[in-house]
């Protein structure tokens, strides 16, 4: 997508940034004493999902409409590994991540062959195919999904059935994922991705194998999405069709768009807002889908930079 402005938060660490990061860390560490840990864990999983998705749309400029395949696919694999094969949590999550990466390689390979609109439609169609496979395959449990996924000890030490412990584990997983994304964005690889997004013909003429870069970014995005999905399966002890439906792909797009495409923290904000909103709406009479759709329409028409993007833009104009 064209003309994405990078938030000032990207241009390296300075005093204010460090202070904010520290404040966020303190909040994150203390949060489970104020809010329900399970809700926070859900938030963190979706935040990681959105950040991983943002890697693709914000920094490579590719809109995937099929990331639910990675999220839900990893959830199923992790759930299966933990429940049926009895793998410990760290290996189960790893299995989910690897499965998502593999799926990302196949889907990405096919989708990269087209640009823009076609790319989006292809990813949508391919993930729908994955959905139908999940619907019919024996090991996914069809409409019921995989339930009662066990929560064992991670690394033999951390007892995940203790909610507070699990929260800190999920926080650490999120931190790891976020750190990886941050490093990717600020690496030479990330710079090339940016060059490709801004002027692909030029990048090609400079000799870069653009397709290879795009595919690598796609697989990274898929893998990190899988990390989020696998973790979520263990948190909720459930892997179901909801995780792998096209509506889920739409949700992560909304989270990223609302928070700010191409900003590092935007997806976090977006995920937080959407997850909180859905939680709140679940109790009320208002249909969730309608509200989500309305927000989509409003954001696309009036608010394309997203919250963090608008703030950054405003700061830049003042400074």
């Amino acid at each position, binding site marked *: *997508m*064209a003309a994405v402005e990078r938030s000032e938060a990207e241009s390296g660490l300075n005093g204010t940034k460090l202070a904010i990061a520290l404040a966020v860390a303190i909040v994150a560490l203390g949060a489970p004493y104020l809010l329900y840990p399970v809700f926070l864990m859900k938030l963190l999983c979706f935040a990681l999902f959105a950040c991983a998705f943002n890697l693709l749309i914000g920094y490579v400029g590719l*809109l995937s409409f099929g990331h639910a395949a990675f999220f839900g696919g990893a959830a199923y694999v992790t759930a299966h590994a933990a429940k049926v094969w009895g793998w410990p949590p760290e290996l189960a999550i790893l299995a989910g991540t690897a499965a998502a990466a593999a799926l990302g390689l196949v889907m990405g390979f*096919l*989708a990269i*062959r*087209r640009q*823009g*609109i*076609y790319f*989006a*439609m*292809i990813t*949508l*169609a*391919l993930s*729908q*195919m994955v959905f*139908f*496979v999940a*619907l*019919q395959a024996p090991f996914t449990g069809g409409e019921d999904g995989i339930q009662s996924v066990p929560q064992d000890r991670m690394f033999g030490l951390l007892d995940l059935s203790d909610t507070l412990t699990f929260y800190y584990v999920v926080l650490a997983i999120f931190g790891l994922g976020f750190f990886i994304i941050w490093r990717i964005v600020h690496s030479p690889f990330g710079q090339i991705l940016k060059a490709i997004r801004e002027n692909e013909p030029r990048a090609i003429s400079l000799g870069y194998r653009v397709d290879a870069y795009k595919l690598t970014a796609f697989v990274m995005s898929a893998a990190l999405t899988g990390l989020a999905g696998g973790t979520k399966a263990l948190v909720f002890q459930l892997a179901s069709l909801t995780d792998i439906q*096209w*509506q889920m792909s*739409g949700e992560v*797009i909304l989270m990223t*768009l609302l928070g700010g495409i191409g900003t590092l923290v935007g997806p976090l904000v977006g995920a937080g807002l959407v997850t909180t909103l859905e939680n709140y709406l679940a109790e009320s009479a208002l*249909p*969730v*889908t*309608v*509200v*989500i*759709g*309305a*927000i*989509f*329409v409003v954001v*696309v*028409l009036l608010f*394309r930079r997203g919250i963090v993007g608008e703030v950054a833009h405003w700061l830049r104009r003042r400074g």
Partner: protein
Amino acid sequence: MIPLLGIPTQVLFGQLLLGLINGSFYALLSLGLAVIFGLLNVINFAHGAQYMLGAFAAWMLLNVLGIGYWPALVLAPVAVAITGIILEKLFLSRLYRLDPLYGLLLTFGVTLILEGLFRSLYGTSGQPYSPPAMLTGAVNLGFMVLPIYRGWVVLASVVICFATWFVIEKTPLGATLRAATENPTLVQAFGINVPRMITLTYAFGVGLAGLAGVLAAPVYQVSPLMGSNLIIVVFAVVVIGGMGSILGAIVTGFALGIFEGLTKVFYPPASNIVVFVIMALVLLVRPAGLFGRER
């Protein structure tokens, strides 16, 4: 009747007919999508929801106003087309100078709103809608029994698709549309009201979806979700056919429906995904689509 490869002829032709019917809807919907995309450069994700609207409009006309199928065939698409005009003038037109992906996202949001709304009003189960008296019953063709309404659906679809193709390719109105698709600025400089043409083209494409919805009402049940799973398959159809040609969209739609029907006969578990598999294969061999021109 001689079974083919162990499949009784009745079953084979029955499934082929079902495939042809699915193909009719694939063709009608991908035609609408192609027409809209050609001029507006927008992927109308809401196409499936507008198809659903058409079916519901017919259902409401019957159950609330007592208006039957034949008037509904005209009224419902018009009603849906009017919603399309409102959508285009108020929202879609603001996005034309932007990346076309925003148009996709906007219409995606509209889909969520429409489906969510109808789902909260009518739940997820389908409402029945009977075919008109004139088209009920079946006729025995010897190698199969043909339900008359289903034969009508295929016939109507072929006629509508052909008529649309004819207007676009062979009439001055179609020439104006083709020219505006190619170079809207120059067409406008000649004194043709291109913004109005754009609105009406969108309305036409949307109306076509609504019309498909009316045709579908007696075949599939009228349910809020009838559009969304269909539209994703139609996307795959459109990727396979390529959006460069109207004829390509039509032919691909019918062909894939038949293919799907055949798969259902010989290997049922794959019937849900065979279109996607074909899409994957086409992408490997001919990324621009079978009839496509690189855009």
